[in-house]
């Protein structure tokens, strides 16, 4: 009898399995989890903490908050940040002050670990939620974060 009960139990388990997939099949119209990606660009919203790439926000006067302290450069494990800076004389106070010339960010080396943003004392760099980072040439991945002609925001000190 074990022979036949084996067969019946076997068939029963097979039918149970088929009922699971069958149920999905019948509800396939609204159950699909596929994201039809390029079509849903408008509705696709990343979470606000999503780590897309590092950017440096500028205000309307083309001013940023980076003092050129290089803490992010030291914190970065992969050397994806390079800061070219200079000491320039502030015409008002007459003191020499560190100023960034270029804040270079290699997106191609970045592992999105977030240590640079943790390290930044003035919140000069933040995460952007940009997720389309593919480019045709690797050189596009090297970015200068501060806009040309931008300068340090007033009142930002280390």
């Amino acid at each position, binding site marked *: 009898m074990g022979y036949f009960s084996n067969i019946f*139990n*076997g068939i029963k*388990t*097979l039918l*149970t*399995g088929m*009922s*699971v*997939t069958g149920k999905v099949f019948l509800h396939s119209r609204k159950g699909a*989890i596929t994201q039809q990606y390029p079509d849903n660009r408008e509705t696709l919203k*990343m*979470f606000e*903490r*999503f*780590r897309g790439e590092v950017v440096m926000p500028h205000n309307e006067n083309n001013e940023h908050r980076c003092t050129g302290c290089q*803490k992010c450069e030291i*914190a970065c*494990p992969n050397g994806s940040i390079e800061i070219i800076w200079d000491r320039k004389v502030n015409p008002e106070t007459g003191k020499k002050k560190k100023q960034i010339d270029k804040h270079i960010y290699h997106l191609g080396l970045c*592992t*999105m*670990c*977030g*240590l640079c943003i*943790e*390290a930044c004392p003035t919140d000069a760099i933040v*995460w952007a939620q940009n997720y389309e980072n593919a480019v045709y040439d690797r050189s596009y991945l090297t970015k200068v974060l501060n806009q040309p002609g931008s300068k340090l925001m007033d009142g930002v000190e280390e």
Partner: protein
Amino acid sequence: MKTEAEKIAPTATNINFKSEEYFVNMGPQHPATHGVLRLLLTIDGEIIKKVEPDLGYIHRSIEKMCERNSYQQIVHLTDRMDYLSSHINNEAVCLTVEKALQLEVPDRVKVIRTIIGELTRIASHCLWWGVMGMDVGALTTYFYGFRDREMINDIFEETCGARLTMNYNIPGGLMWDIHPNFVKRTKEFVAHFKTKIPEYDRLLTGNIIFQKRMKGVGILSKEDAISFGASGPVARGSGYSCDVRKHHPYSALDKVTFNEALKTEGDSLARYQVRIQEMWESLSIIEQLIDNIPEGDYKVATNTVIKLPKGEYYQKVETARGELGVYIVSTGTKNPYRVKFRSPGFSNISLLNHIAVGGKIGDLVATMATLDIVVPDIDR
């Protein structure tokens, strides 16, 4: 005089073939090896005579890289080891550093770390379940597993900012506080997933073909499990109680009650059932903690440059695959002198030859799926 076959396969030269045996190169590009693992099989017809893993195809020498990085920077490298339990890897490094600094982190941090750790474990097991089904030929399981894993990944993305390599832990706490939606979403997930595990069981576990494929295949005895240094569900399937969460509790795991999933059969089915059972246990741990996340800081301030006192520090944690050990030797500078990661996958793959010999090719694939191999974890 070398034969033609030996010339083609240089590493097979030291295998002594009998006349009826032949050599098959499984991997590094093969669907069942889950990455770039290469297995040198000696086969007699369909029957496996010898399995020899050839590793190192994605070895990045993380241990050497750690020696030139600061302690904060090490954490993100561990994301890239066992990427399916990246949070727990991060936690292991942070716990080691905190232990060395004798830093007591706030209770809030401990609880959040534990919840996210258990979510990571469920996510990892979901993916394993899907791939497990796919390895034995049931292709649909893959998508069902991913459907549920996706919910966890969304929770991670909202709170930690990334889906896989999260780097949410820093020595001394967490990078940010949890997102306001975290508790709500986690509860939703727990409720959702409770209806899905029975579905997993109905679709695959109970299936007669699956049972026949798994039962009595790849048997690992308890003594061998200990001797081979097996850990995690692989060892617990052989009745060896090795859950680090039980024996050496860390973070908030001493505050919760849960059962260690144990099976004594030691075959592939036992390893499978242990993982299914673990998902239930993880759910119960999350349920115990999610409502009582204590208020407080999400990190304690550390120096910008962390210098560990001279000495040796070892911390083990239970990742989804087993026992991960972090061994840091410090000479008192800002970089570690030597870091060793005792990865669970490395010990688990070493017993593959022991349990797969004598089975068929199909058995090998099924057994390997129950070992739940992540190749970067083996290669580090």
